[in-house]
């Protein structure tokens, strides 16, 4: 389906897909809906609910079946579907039974724990379904490779849930501002983070009366109910915070730069949650060679403090810095004082002038010759006024209808995710890893 990876150009294909087909496809999907698509929901935990809410706004979907090993989730899914479409979907606790029984399914939306992503996606693809699967593709790089191979072997669609790839704000920033108007000049550094407080990172509790039977848990790979509820903290079940939270943003680094990093060096530890298998805080440095020059990217995921203002990606250029986030409130663009004027861009609607932070009064501790002039603040001209996952799902269903091309199919997602699989090994080994074709290819 696609040529093997080349570090310098592999992500340009993804960028092209988004530029040429992605945005119009989103608009068409929103208007469309004439062709009914029969959907199976596989996994209806927290993320499954988020995706369902986003899908509730998309016309033409019929939720035919739902599958979850936890009866509590299964009943919730059936009730929500019934409330939305007026008919009760068929409920299953086992995906094999669902695939063997249900006829006429067109697509599956997989939102199971990470270590089930690959087996569930492969099963669905081989059963002839198109699949939307949450990121991270898998808890192992080999699991992710299996997904790419299954997609290409079956010829079915497989979209991975890097939903920022279909977000109009991200598409506009990349194609119009960075590539089109080149407002950053040369991008020289990237900084990204997802920091959240200890209170937001606690283990998820459960009602013992609602527990799943031990034999069922064991059948599906969970040692106990705590592990079922908190699989994100276990090394055999997930990639931990760097894949759980970081994958979305490191994907943006690679997508925006259009290349994969050539090395990663990471560090991590158990700063607060000492009993967890995965590190609670991880910091990673990526080195890139881009056509414009070298770029270094720093990424941190801290589950022990909200310091630094939540989650965002910051692209630092010689003429401007773009702070972008899935949350509009964290998005700002800063023009260097030495950069060409943006007045024309503002007058033509490409940017909005923002409110500059209040200037600090002169004081004795500032040495003026060491400081740069304060940059001007600008903002994007518009917003996404939908749930953040909706455009990506719209793109998927429009692609199922043959009206669009996937914005993040499994191969492109793999090419972007592959470096992330090497962050934890680097942190554990305390060694820089030079990323070769072997590390990054299917």
């Amino acid at each position, binding site marked *: 389906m696609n040529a093997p990876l080349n570090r310098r150009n592999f992500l340009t294909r993804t960028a092209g897909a988004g530029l040429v087909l992605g*945005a*119009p496809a*989103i*608009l068409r999907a929103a208007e469309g809906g004439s062709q009914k698509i029969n959907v199976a929901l596989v996994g209806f935990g*927290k993320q499954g609910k988020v995706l369902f809410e986003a899908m509730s706004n998309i016309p033409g979907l019929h939720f035919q079946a739902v599958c979850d090993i936890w009866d*509590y989730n299964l009943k919730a899914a059936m009730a929500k579907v019934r409330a939305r479409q007026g008919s009760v979907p068929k409920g299953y606790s086992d995906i094999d039974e669902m695939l063997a029984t249900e006829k006429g399914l067109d697509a599956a939306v997989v939102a199971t724990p990470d270590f089930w992503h690959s087996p569930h996606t492969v099963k669905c693809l081989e059963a002839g379904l198109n699949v939307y699967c949450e990121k991270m593709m898998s808890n192992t790089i080999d699991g992710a490779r299996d997904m790419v191979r299954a997609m290409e072997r079956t010829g079915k669609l497989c979209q991975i849930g890097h939903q920022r790839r279909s977000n*109009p*704000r991200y*598409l*506009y920033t990349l*194609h*119009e501002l960075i590539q089109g108007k080149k407002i950053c000049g040369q991008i020289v550094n990237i900084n990204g983070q997802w920091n959240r407080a200890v*209170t937001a990172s606690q283990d*998820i*509790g*459960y*009602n*013992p*009366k*609602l527990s799943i039977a031990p034999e069922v848990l064991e059948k599906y790979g969970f040692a106990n109910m705590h592990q079922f*509820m908190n699989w994100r903290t276990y090394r055999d079940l997930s990639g931990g915070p760097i894949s759980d939270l970081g994958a979305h943003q490191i994907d943006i680094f690679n997508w925006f730069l259009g290349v994969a990093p050539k090395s990663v060096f990471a560090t991590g530890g158990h700063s607060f949650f000492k009993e967890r298998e995965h590190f609670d805080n991880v910091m990673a440095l990526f080195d890139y060679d881009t056509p414009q020059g070298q770029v270094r990217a720093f990424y941190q995921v801290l589950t022990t403090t909200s310091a630094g203002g939540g989650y965002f990606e910051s692209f630092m250029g010689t003429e401007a810095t773009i702070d972008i986030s899935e949350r509009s409130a964290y998005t700002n663009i800063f023009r260097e004082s030495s950069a060409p004027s943006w007045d024309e861009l503002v007058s*033509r*609607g*490409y940017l909005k002038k923002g409110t500059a932070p209040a200037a600090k009064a002169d004081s004795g501790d500032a040495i003026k010759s060491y400081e740069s002039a304060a940059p001007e603040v600008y903002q*994007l*001209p*518009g*917003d*996404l*006024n939908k749930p953040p996952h909706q*455009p990506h799902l719209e793109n998927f269903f429009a692609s199922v209808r043959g009206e669009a091309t996937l914005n993040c199919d499994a191969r492109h997602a793999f090419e972007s995710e592959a470096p992330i699989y090497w962050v934890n090994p680097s942190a554990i080994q305390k060694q820089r890893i030079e990323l070769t074709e072997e590390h990054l290819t299917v």
Partner: protein
Amino acid sequence: MNAEEPKPDTLALSLGAMLARFWLAARAIQTGIEKYAGSTLSETAVSINGQPNTYGLTDGAATKGYALANYHGVPAALYDKFAGEPFMAGWALKLFDKTLGPALILLGVTILLGVASRISLFALGLLYIGLTWGLILIREDSGVAWLAAHMILIIAALALVRYDRLRILKKW
């Protein structure tokens, strides 16, 4: 009572009782009504260089509205947290979710009209204790403190109720 002690200012106490009653009624009624609130989003595509943009960037304006279909007793984000608590019985959570909005409106109206004020205020207090217990379970300490302020007002209203002249079913 000592003859030298001043007589209570019954007018002020009566006004105080009514103010406490009206505040609690307003709080309960509007909180109950807000359970039926929803928003409708209208979007217009942002124009760039004189043309509507093709990326899907929009200027959105949310319009608030009320409908029975919008009803949400316990907010979804909190519902899942409550459901995961071992002390929280599923049936009780469902019952609370279904009745919270109507109960707030009903009690708010009876308190506003002064219908069986003692019973109405006591029932509202019990409802707030139920909410407080749930927030303790999920460690929402600021919410607990906020509800405690409501409880103080309810107790004040109960203490002043006999001075409140505008009531129906005064015995209760």
